[in-house]
């Protein structure tokens, strides 16, 4: 009971921090989780994960606050919420817009948690039968998903992903035990520390970039009523369930995540709702309902491939894999059988977080608005300091701070020239897996590539992975096509 209370309190703290981070434009859930992963190094894994899950859920909802009040999404998954949330705020219904975002995020979050609870053991059971070639296919799948982070240039995304993979291979080779790409330096034999790299790439670089953007925005201060009418809530429930299911399914596709889930849910609402409260794009409640229920439902979906296959569902789950690694755990089907209590704890923390952000979101709207109004040049230097502490905390070593600074500057330069950063982290996470599984597969097929292709062609699991790739790429290119058409 005491342990449960402890988990609840940690999740509450994480959720509150997540909402605050999500509500500040430019600061992302990925950055907050990256900093926290390093800070919680000395904690037991359940406590660390409780706070991380709270941040994850809280930040995705928090992103909707600025989406409604400033027309700037606090998180990428809230981009679609701006379409109707901001027009609502402009006509004096900012409170109701945030109220809708909060209740729908809550309902979507519940659907996501339910899907995670039911779906994960089922997929883990299938994943136990995976052969090395299936893991290799999954790693390739993950790497090729850089397309979803491409931001206009697939070549740039592929460059950062490849750099991540090659840097992930620095250190001792897992198969031969020989040093690889260490250039004779003892410092490199241990390899590149994933958490330090993540902290620099997502934490420091993001803060530096925000400082240099030096943006200020007008925050709508008058919000009015917050609680949505219950009769409308009941009326929109079927839509909520449909868009939440879309969120879970799209979120569960590795690398696709909340932004595409909310976009597809919005598209679904536009096509199926005959008489919206206002035209879509001009303050339709249904627009906020669809976007917010889907992006929080996508969280539960994104955690499924991370836990069962070790493949990150989005950038945040890539960072959470780092949290598992620093606690000596490797996500995958065996994690589910060896430490089922960890899975239960993750589900419970997400469930707690879902209730907490509903409470905090409804009660603390006004303080959040005050916080969003604080100039960034006051908030950001202390965040740089916390990032430095985060890097130091990993091994109580200033060398890690220097590495973090190095990755921070690399990330900053990437941001300046529009080289996307998430693919580099995907590369760092998936590179060693890809290398190891490919080479082990080739050893088992005595170096014959034709035999490997033959094995893939007759294995139902391998063929399912290939089919999953097909579906995901179809969705990715559909999104790109829509973006190009405007």
């Amino acid at each position: 009971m005491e342990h449960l209370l402890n988990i609840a309190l940690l999740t509450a703290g994480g959720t509150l921090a997540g909402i605050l981070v999500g509500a500040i434009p430019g600061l992302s859930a990925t950055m907050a989780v990256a900093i926290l992963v390093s800070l919680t190094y000395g904690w037991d894994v359940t406590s660390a994960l409780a706070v991380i899950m709270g941040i994850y859920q809280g930040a995705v909802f928090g992103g909707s606050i600025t989406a409604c009040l400033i027309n700037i999404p606090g998180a990428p998954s809230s981009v679609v919420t701006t379409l109707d949330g901001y027009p609502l705020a402009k006509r004096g219904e900012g409170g109701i817009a945030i109220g809708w975002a909060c209740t729908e995020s809550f309902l979507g979050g519940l659907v996501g948690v339910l899907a995670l609870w039911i779906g994960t053991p089922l997929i883990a059971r299938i994943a136990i039968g995976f052969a090395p070639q299936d893991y290799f296919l999954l790693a390739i799948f993950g790497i090729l998903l850089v397309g979803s982070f491409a931001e206009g240039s697939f070549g740039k995304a592929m460059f950062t992903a490849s750099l991540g993979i090659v840097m992930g291979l620095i250190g001792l080779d897992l198969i031969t035990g020989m040093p690889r790409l260490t250039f004779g330096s003892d410092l490199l034999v241990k390899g590149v520390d994933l958490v330090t790299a993540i902290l620099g790439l997502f934490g420091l670089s993001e803060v530096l970039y925000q400082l240099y953007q030096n943006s200020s925005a007008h925050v709508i201060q008058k919000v009015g009523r917050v609680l949505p009418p219950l009769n409308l809530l009941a009326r929109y429930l079927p839509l909520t369930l449909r868009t939440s299911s879309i969120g879970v399914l799209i979120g569960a596709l590795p690398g696709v995540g909340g932004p595409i889930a909310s976009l597809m849910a919005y598209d679904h609402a536009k096509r199926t709702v005959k008489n919206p409260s206002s035209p879509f794009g001009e303050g339709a409640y249904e627009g906020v309902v669809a976007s917010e229920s889907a992006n929080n439902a996508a969280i539960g979906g994104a955690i499924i491939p991370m836990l069962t296959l070790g493949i990150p569902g989005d950038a945040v789950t890539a960072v959470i894999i780092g949290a598992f690694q620093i606690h000596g755990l490797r996500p995958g089907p065996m994690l589910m059988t060896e430490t089922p209590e960890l899975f239960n704890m993750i589900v419970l923390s997400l469930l707690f977080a879902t209730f907490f952000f509903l409470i905090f979101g409804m009660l603390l709207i006004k303080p959040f608005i005050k916080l969003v109004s604080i100039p960034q040049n006051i908030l950001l230097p202390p965040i740089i300091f916390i990032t430095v502490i985060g890097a130091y905390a990993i091994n109580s070593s200033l060398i890690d701070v220097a590495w973090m600074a190095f990755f921070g500057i690399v990330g900053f330069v990437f941001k300046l020239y529009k080289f996307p950063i998430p693919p580099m982290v995907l590369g760092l996470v998936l590179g060693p897996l890809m290398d190891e599984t490919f080479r082990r597969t080739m050893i088992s097929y005595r170096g014959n590539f034709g035999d490997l292709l033959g094995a893939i062609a007759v294995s139902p699991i391998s063929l399912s992975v290939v089919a999953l790739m097909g579906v995901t790429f179809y969705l990715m290119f559909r999104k790109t096509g829509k973006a190009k058409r405007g």
Partner: protein
Amino acid sequence: MKAVRYKSGEIGANIVFLLVAMFFLTSSFFIDAGNSQALSSPKIVPILLSAVMVVCAVLSLIEAIKTRQVSKATENVFQLPVLTYVGVFFVYVGALFLLPFWLASAAFLLFSFLYWKSLPPVKAILASAGVVAVSMTLFAKVFYIDF
């Protein structure tokens, strides 16, 4: 003027990325492969991926040379204060090796608040001392970090 500086900066950055890619490609060929077969060799993935990096860097460089559009966000970067602040951050990281953690951090925060004109001097001193004292105490007690 800004456009010219951005453009040369982007081309310069792409050349650096290309050199990094070529460095990794060359280094990958020198990995000790022992007795392993070609496709299971520890060289295979680094060589393939470094080659991909080289190709992508070349494509990106060509794109940078061809493009004429300069985004508003990246123009700001070439203001001197931006580069100076990055330099000061590196001085801070270096100072951490020489000075006590709290002292180097408080000095960095004070400089940041004054540099970005976030707070007047007295408030900046109090804020930087406060942030360092509260953060270090909190992180030492809650996260067991030994400074």
